[in-house]
């Protein structure tokens, strides 16, 4: 069995001590794998990934990405340890130009990462919008900048929180297409409401409800089983 790129062990997290939103969640992410996380609103999906990235308080458990336990460490240390995180909203520095957003990630990375030329290969449109203010971009363009910013840090794992939220169908396709390419370079933990689209590119999926893992299965199993889709993902099967 391949060694996991990211291991989360019995993670407890939330915003108020004694009232955890994420309750003893464990997961692991293998190299070149996409693990999709689903669940109804309020299930704790975003809190889970925020806690892994270091921007939500952790009350217990362990997070390993490479070396030591990262649980509860400051977010900048977690980013330097190899966890790249793209928040659902406010995911670019709107007052800076696109190029400044990207240059900042290059300046802050710890060791090696992709070159700008490699990023432009993945997202060709970015090259032409380098001088535009990131705040003036469309939702899809912002998502490209946000993913590129995270990639330029040279992560060992990429975490995306609902990258298709608020995007037009064409932009959703573009984002998922880029994720297919990205998985060859970096494993992805993907929180997504667009269940069917996510299952098509994911290897495995976790269903989260009330902060706990309720189901863990391969993506193809879930896609092929209408009963499971209806029972567990009912309203989310777009």
């Amino acid at each position: 069995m391949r060694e996991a790129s990211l291991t989360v062990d019995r993670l407890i997290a939330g915003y108020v001590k004694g009232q955890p939103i994420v309750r003893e969640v464990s997961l692991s992410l293998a190299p070149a794998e996409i693990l999709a996380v689903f669940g109804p609103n309020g299930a704790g999906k975003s809190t889970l990934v925020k806690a892994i990235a270091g921007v939500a308080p952790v009350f217990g458990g362990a997070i390993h990405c490479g070396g030591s336990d990262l649980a509860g460490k400051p977010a900048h240390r977690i980013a330097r340890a190899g966890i790249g995180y793209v928040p659902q909203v406010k995911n670019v520095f709107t007052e800076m130009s696109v190029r400044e957003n990207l240059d900042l990630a290059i300046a802050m990375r710890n060791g090696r990462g992709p070159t700008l030329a490699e990023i432009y290969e993945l997202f060709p449109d970015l090259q032409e919008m380098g001088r535009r203010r990131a705040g003036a971009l469309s939702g899809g363009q912002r998502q490209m900048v946000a993913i590129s910013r995270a990639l330029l840090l040279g992560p060992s794992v990429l975490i995306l929180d609902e990258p298709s939220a608020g995007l037009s169908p064409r932009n959703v396709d573009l984002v998922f297409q880029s994720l297919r390419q990205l998985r060859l370079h970096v494993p992805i933990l993907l929180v997504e409401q667009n269940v069917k689209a996510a299952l098509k590119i994911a290897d495995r999926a976790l269903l989260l409800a009330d902060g706990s893992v309720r189901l863990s299965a391969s993506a193809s199993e879930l896609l092929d089983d209408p009963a499971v889709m209806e029972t567990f993902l009912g309203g989310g099967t777009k």
Partner: protein
Amino acid sequence: MISLLVDAVLVGAILCLASLGLSLAYAIFRFPNFAHAEFLTVGAYGAFVGFTAAAPVLNEPIQILVGAAVAILAAALIAALSGRIVFQPLAARGGGPALIIAAFATGLLIRNLIVFLFGPTELYVQRELEIAENIGYGVRLTPTEIGILIATAVVIYALHLVMSRTTFGRCLRATAENPDLAAVTAIPVDRIRLGAWLLAGFYCGLSGLALTMLAPIRPETGYEYLLPALAAVILGGLGSIYGTLVGAMLIGLAEAAAVHYGFAEWRQVISFALIILILMIRPNGLMGRAAS
């Protein structure tokens, strides 16, 4: 007319130095730091101590440099200590009204400490009498005023370079806009915030030096500049460094015009009427953006 503009630039320059630290602190922590007034006062007293200590052994230009060094060190130290001990821990717990009250309390504490150490009376540096010289077009300025204008232009341009060209400047802008996103971009947010306090202190030190060179100083010296400095920051657009520069210059122009046309005692009224007028047209200030 040119003389009026030069007066406006001089008033605006001092106000600009006094306001920049306030604007930086607002950009990073999103609260009006009323203790900023006392950071200015600490800068002024630091300049006084440095200048006076160097007086017996050094000539005046070197005394001014020593005064500047002590002013900057003292103001940066007090700003960084206040930030680390009082403001950052409170901001981490949600900030809000507690931060504003803490800023008032910190300011009062520092002001009383100054009274305890230096007494409540005015102090002034012993300098040779300066004569304003005609520099052309009927404009008369003293060497100190010329020095303040040049130094202000240099440090403002330096700030522009720091903010736009250096990694620290970009990290500062990133932290100001979105601290969580900055942190997941591997920016050590706490260290950048400390850097912001030191930078705010640097400008308070320079501003304090300018105040000490121009007039006697008192424990209330900084407090007297708080309102115009806040006005410059609000007028320019809260948290906008370039807006603060424009705001300070506009207030300088309004005050200089009031004095020039014989309404000296109305100068603050005219300045604040101008602010109200501009804010009615642009509620986020001249260079501020509406919160999205």
